[in-house]
């Protein structure tokens, strides 16, 4: 393995260790574990959004697939009495299936049209949840979504995973596995096709890449991950509400985008970084809660204007500023400060 490869492996191991040591560090404080549990669930949702940017599209519909995952999970557990784990997988698959059904028209269009369509989709799914009272509890919301319940864990014995401090392990474990899968995809050969499509979809088609097909695979996987995040959320929160201002409203789609951009959309850890920083800022400013969206919005605008590579990209950004400065000092004008340099 290369030096870079080892560093990355080390980072992964570090992440896993920190994630599972956190309860001990926090002395099993239920409040903070709840926060970090939601943080993990959100990171997965933001990562699913980032995954779609690999085909150069901005999906404002990940929340919609989370809605499907959440309500499907609730219905499977409450109505069909399917146990937690199969239900988690089935509801995510259901979300992926819906994505597959709509993928063709969605991926035929590009850019702004794609974003509009996905935004409309998220809103549509929310409205369906709002009006389909018999299935979703309608506007009053759905209460009593069960968690994993008591389960046998080897060497530990029976654990009640419905307690927030214990559900943390399940959420974090599932999210880490999901992130590993997404990470694998970015190292797999398929990522090269996505990149080709992102760079030039006409040329990608001309060299034989099935553009719609590969975009569909990307979109469906992202929907699966969003659905999984929704299902995890359902068992975490135990009640679901399809209100505009709830987690499933348009504003959540906005927050996801902001988390991603602040972290750095070109980096795999960008979503984790952005979600962590912004959610912790939100926690720190809890006393002035009504100003929170304002702070978040301002951060988003400042980051996209002045740090387009996000927080993770700061070192690279600084290097590119230095380079521009050096070139300017050397009397070269009109250099491109975007930071794309050749490996010459």
């Amino acid at each position, binding site marked *: 393995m290369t030096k870079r490869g080892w560093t990355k492996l080390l980072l992964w191991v570090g992440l896993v260790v920190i994630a599972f040591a956190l309860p001990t560090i926090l002395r099993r404080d239920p409040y903070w574990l709840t926060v970090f549990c939601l943080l993990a669930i959100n990171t997965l949702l933001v990562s699913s959004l980032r995954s779609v*940017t690999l085909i150069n599209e*901005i999906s*404002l519909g990940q929340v919609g697939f989370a809605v499907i995952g959440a309500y499907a999970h609730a219905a499977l557990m409450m109505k069909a009495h399917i146990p937690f784990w199969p239900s988690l997988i089935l509801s995510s698959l259901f979300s992926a299936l819906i994505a597959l059904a*709509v993928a*063709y*028209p*969605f991926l*035929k*269009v590009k*850019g*702004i*049209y794609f*974003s*509009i*369509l996905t*935004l*409309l*989709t998220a*809103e*549509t799914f929310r*409205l*369906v949840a*709002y*009006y*389909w*009272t018999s299935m979703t509890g309608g506007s009053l919301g759905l209460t009593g979504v069960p968690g994993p319940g008591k389960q046998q864990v080897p060497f530990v014995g029976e654990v009640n995973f419905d307690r927030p401090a214990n559900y943390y392990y399940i959420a974090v474990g599932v999210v880490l596995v999901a992130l590993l899968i997404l990470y694998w995809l970015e190292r797999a050969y398929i990522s090269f096709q996505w990149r080709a499509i992102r760079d030039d979809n006409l040329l990608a088609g001309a060299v034989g890449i099935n553009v719609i097909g590969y975009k569909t695979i990307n979109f469906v996987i992202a929907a699966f991950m969003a659905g999984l995040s929704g299902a995890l959320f359902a068992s975490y929160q135990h009640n679901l509400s399809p209100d*505009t*201002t709830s987690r499933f*409203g*348009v*504003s959540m789609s*906005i927050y996801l*985008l*902001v988390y991603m*951009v602040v972290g750095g*959309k070109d980096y795999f850890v960008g979503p984790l970084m952005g979600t962590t920083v912004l959610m912790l800022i939100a926690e720190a400013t809890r006393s002035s809660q*009504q*100003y*929170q*969206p*304002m702070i*978040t*919005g*301002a*951060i*988003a*605008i400042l980051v*996209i*204007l002045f740090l*387009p590579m996000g927080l993770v990209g700061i070192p690279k950004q600084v290097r590119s500023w230095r380079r521009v400065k050096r070139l300017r000092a050397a009397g070269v004008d009109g250099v*491109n*400060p*975007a930071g*794309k340099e050749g490996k010459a």
Partner: protein
Amino acid sequence: MSSLDLWLQATVNGIALGWLYVLMALGLTLILSIMGILQLAHGEIYMLGAYAVHYLVGRGLGLYPAIATSMFIMAVLGIILERGLFRPRSGREVVLCSIVISTGLTLILTSAIVVIFGLYTKSLPLLATGSVEIFGAAVPKDRILAIGFSVLALVLLYLFLKKTRLGLAMIASAQNREGSFLKGINPNRMSMAAMAIGCALAALAGALAGAILQLQPYMGALPMIKGLVIIVLGGLGSIPGALIGGLILGLIDGIVPVFFSPAVASVGPLVVVILVLLFRPKGLLGHD
């Protein structure tokens, strides 16, 4: 009230709201086609326009002068936003930038309004009191006025775009940004004009909506989404397209719930949009 009355009232309400959505769509389509960006804070401009009227009326201004002032303020705000935030920067992804900036703006504007005016709903004075008889049923005058103002705004916009130099330059810029640049049209000025007009239209729509319905900080999301749907249906950059898109959306919103449950009806717009995009990817009146 007879059932005919109720039916007619619902129809007039629907038409009035439909026209407001068309106003939103017109602003969005100008901004989208001329600037090439997705301005997701357009709904918040609409909301802000309504609250500006509310504030001005509270300071003792008459409703109509207040609406005009609000439109003017929003137009200026539009120009400031274009210059300060939305003007494309080199080496950035335009679509992503515009989406993030406008969503950030959405968060800032809504929470600012929540902080200043609170979460509770506010109301504006009525545009007019009383009602007129149409086909033997009483239709409130304010609805008719709202429709009238919307149509008037549309006609003025149409004349502006077709008859004035600036309007024609804007159309040229919307159809072909680079081409019109080569012909000596300054794209930045076109963008500023588009934002100014778009924001003024949104302010008008918001004020009218505030007068017929109510004001609340999250009132902008729905009309913005409706406006986007209208654009996709009708075709980007087309005024007749926006009208047809608005008509279709109005029909879906009005008729589908009569025959289906609301859960099914809420899928209606998405299905129609998908069908239109499958068979006419550029919208009904958009050209290849």
